[in-house]
């Protein structure tokens, strides 16, 4: 079905004219989306796209390289704080600030990648978890970072601030276009990277690191590179997130956030770019829209309120999203370890070979 006859067929971006057509159609759809959506939904889309960037990056580390990270909220925080502070104090233009902040995040990723060379499984989990919490507490304690109260993002200026070239972007719709362009670029970059020598090295480390080393893959370089690339993505996502929400404090970058990031890629499908995108879209939508006001859901909402009155507390019903996310996580590992991408592959295979 999906036979590849030469190397070029494996690396090409669009496999056929049909896929090219639908990709462009989807892109045009995305570009015109704010015209028919109300303003809150554009805000939601912005958050979804930020999470898409992060999930794609995390999937490079977890899905493709087979490492574990419970500290991605830390890289996310570095990106958010780095971008905003660089713009506020050094008056850098947005593009320069976000790239520098993402490089700082990548540097921290590289640093945490060094102990990861010798750690695996639970030990790696605790090391990355400790890193995430350390970043959160350092940011919360230092007054430079705004302390516990958090900071609000500066005006988003694409040109050079305080000169005639200043080009301030405000409003969810304009930010939407900026994030959309960055997201498309980052996703295509990740997809291309996974088709090159680097991506194949990552996958070989995931499948068997000893065999990979024997084949000539330098584990030191590629494992730390994987952490670095993943942290770079998280940094970019964080930088954009700061402008989407406008105001953030250190304790929003907590362990739960790192867990939710892991949920996104597990639910979407480990080791596939498309899976990461689907997972990020689904989980973000559930968290920020569907489960946010669970009592307003049709049918289910009334039932839940009735249950809450009888056995639980109505005020605690907001915690229902935690329960739903937990159940989704457990169910996906038990019933569909490949995630939504696995379901998609099954459907595709069924229809491609349909009469048989």
């Amino acid at each position, binding site marked *: 079905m999906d036979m590849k006859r030469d190397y070029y067929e494996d690396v090409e971006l669009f496999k056929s004219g049909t896929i090219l057509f639908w990709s462009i159609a989807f892109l045009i759809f995305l570009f015109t989306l704010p015209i028919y959506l109300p303003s809150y939904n554009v805000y939601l889309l912005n958050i979804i796209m930020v999470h898409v960037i992060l999930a794609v990056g995390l999937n490079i580390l*977890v899905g493709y390289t087979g490492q574990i990270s419970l500290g991605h909220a830390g890289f996310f925080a570095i990106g958010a704080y780095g971008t905003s502070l660089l713009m506020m104090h050094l008056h850098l233009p947005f593009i320069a600030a976000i790239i520098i902040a993402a490089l700082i995040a990548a540097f921290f990723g590289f640093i945490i990648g060094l102990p990861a060379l010798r*750690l695996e499984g639970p030990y790696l989990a605790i090391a990355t*978890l400790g890193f995430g919490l350390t970043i959160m507490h350092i940011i919360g304690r230092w007054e430079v970072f705004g302390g516990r109260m958090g900071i609000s993002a500066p005006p988003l200026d694409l040109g050079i601030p305080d000169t005639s070239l200043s080009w301030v972007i405000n409003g969810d719709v304009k930010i939407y276009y900026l994030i959309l362009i960055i997201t498309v670029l980052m996703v295509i970059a990740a997809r291309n990277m996974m088709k090159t020598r680097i991506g194949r090295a990552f996958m070989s480390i995931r499948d068997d690191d000893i065999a990979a080393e024997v084949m000539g893959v330098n584990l030191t370089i590629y494992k730390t590179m994987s952490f670095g690339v993943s942290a770079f993505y998280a940094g970019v996502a964080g930088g954009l997130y700061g402008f989407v929400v406008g105001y953030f404090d250190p304790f929003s970058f907590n362990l739960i956030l790192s*867990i939710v990031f892991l949920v996104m890629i597990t639910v979407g499908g480990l080791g596939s770019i498309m899976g990461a995108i689907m997972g990020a879209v689904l989980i973000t939508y559930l968290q920020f829209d569907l489960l946010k006001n669970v009592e307003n859901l049709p049918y289910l909402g009334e039932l839940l309120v009735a249950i809450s009155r009888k056995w*639980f507390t109505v005020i605690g019903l907001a915690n229902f999203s*935690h329960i739903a996310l*937990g159940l989704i*996580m*457990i169910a996906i590992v038990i019933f569909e370890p490949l995630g939504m991408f696995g379901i998609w592959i099954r459907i595709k295979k069924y229809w491609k070979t349909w009469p048989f």
Partner: protein
Amino acid sequence: MFEMLLIEGLAIGACYGLFGVAVAIIYKTSDVINFAQGEMGMVATFVAYHIMVIYGFPFWIAFPATMIFALLLGMAIEFCFLRPAKNPTVLGLLIITLGAEMLLMGAAGWKWGAEQKDFPFLLSIHKKYEIFPGLALNEWTIGVFILSIVIMTLLFLFFRYSRLGIAMRATQQNTNAAKIMGIKVERVFSITWGISSMIGAIAAMFFAARSVLDPNFMMEPFMRAFAAAVLGGLTSIPGVVIGGLFLGIIENFFGYAWPEWKPIVAFVVIILIITIRPSGLFSKHYVKKV
């Protein structure tokens, strides 16, 4: 001052050690890192709170009831969530336990709300006794020391001499061989989760008596205890206890010197130590063979 800090550190460290042992027992038998351990303890503590405050029973009735609840909760989580997963990866198991954590946290928040409550524990941290001249210890500290010594001794005897304990060790060493020898491995896992949940619940009650009771109160202690367990090597129970004590002392002294950095010192120490010794201080590092 020095000895007060030392004893405080040892006491909180013993608590970390106790909780770390609960993590280590599960890891020892079934190779699962149980991220839901903290929340299992939290829910059990809430049950004890509910029995004592809402129903008004004394502690001596609430405690055994909570222990039974914790046992059943641990077994239920193993039975419902881990057993159906077929050949899960390390990451898959991690996701399952993290999912159980979110589930329990959400359930506790739904049932008891997010406001902080005082946990009416038997042992108070304000009542002090002078054991040696010039050295006053509070009830809580004495309780922690006695209880952890008792539990450690019981566990040692259990793993050393009882048939079930030996079966657990056999399961840990080689699951397939244990199956061939007639051990019902699933049942062993189930019992392990139950015991671990009970130990975790006891430790969680001690933590609750020190701080406040809310659905998030076990996050930080769990991570410290987990860190202590990793520090000690996760597979050796004495190692975990020593790791916990070590962590408690370091944290207390650092907390005295630089109070604002107290929450992160544990993790910095852990990262440094596992960078140098990847399997913890007291565990043999197995080099993977091809």
